[in-house]
């Protein structure tokens, strides 16, 4: 927000208020940057343990759910164990998908600094 026009006040007072507005603006900016960093730290678990728990549970849950659906379908259709085996593989795929999505979120939440050296990539090879 730009400084509000305060024409009917004496010069020193105007200077004080504009100074105050600038200070409020810069303090707000600092606060926003801090909040953003805090959010980035927190999403996906700020700790490595939190991240490990997140990824592990995402993967295992998908495998268990897939296998469970296969088990129920088998019991219902009397085709034990074939659907369960297929659903186990599909659950595995879903687990990989979950983990990839979770990691993509984590990466998006905390991108590497601009000048970070991420090692050689394809363009570096001559």
């Amino acid at each position: 927000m730009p400084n509000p026009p305060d024409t009917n006040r004496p010069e020193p007072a105007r200077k004080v208020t504009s100074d105050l507005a600038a200070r409020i603006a810069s303090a707000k900016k600092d606060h926003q940057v801090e909040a953003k960093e805090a959010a980035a730290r927190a999403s996906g678990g700020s700790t490595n343990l939190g991240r490990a728990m997140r990824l592990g549970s995402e993967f295992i849950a998908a495998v268990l759910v897939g296998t469970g659906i296969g088990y129920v379908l088998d019991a219902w259709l009397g085709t034990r164990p074939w659907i369960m085996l297929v659903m186990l593989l599909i659950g595995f795929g879903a687990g990989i998908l979950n983990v990839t999505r979770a990691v993509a979120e984590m990466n998006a939440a905390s991108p590497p600094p601009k000048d970070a050296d991420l090692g050689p990539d394809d363009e570096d090879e001559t």
Partner: protein
Amino acid sequence: MADPTRVDPIHQFGITNVFSFGGEGGFALTNSALFMVVSVVVILGYLLLSTAGRRVVPTRAQVVSEMLYEFVANMVQGAAGKEGMKFFPFLFALFMFVLAANMFGMFPYFFAVTSHIIVTFALAMLVISIVIIYGFLRNGPKFLKLFVPAGVPGYVLPIVVPIEIVSFLSRPVSLSVRLFANILAGHITVKVFAGFIVSLGALGWLGFLGASLPLFMTIAITALELMIAALQAYVFAVLSAMYINDAIHPSH
């Protein structure tokens, strides 16, 4: 526990009746239900009392309430956008309940409500039901696009669609297992290390020295548990917001 040196880290999760009437099959208030009620009452009481004054220059208590509001509001807007604010009351209630329940679980002799998977699973099913019902209400059959990622050639769809469906169905499971496992494992760890203090302390002066090690460990883990209690409440709420975002915008 009859023998005080015997460590029983699972004992704390037992469900007992605080009071009951009507005998078998009648009404009973369990310790789990009691702490759910306590959590809700404390949240409601704190938020109502602290904001009752509606001061322009807030008191300390009011500042805490406002910070909680802004924290969750920012989180919901970040995860689900402006439209997701429709679900702010739900997500705020969810976050506050899980946070309060986790924090009450940290008190000695208190019961950790979220250490039972049926509680966390019920919360997760609530979230996923809202996602499914609101998704269909808002988008109609287009909600099923959630399971058909855009730009995938037709011949891989028979594989991709089941994978997407299983991935969607695994969400409530991973959501509930994560919260429950964190709280359960944390409480057991604290109990086990605290039990070491007692068993080592019974071994004479050398054991007394040795007992200081698990004592420091217990203090450190308690601090870690406090952080995990807050963090898991946040993770639970932020993931719920993300899933609700899927209901609002079903295409990936």
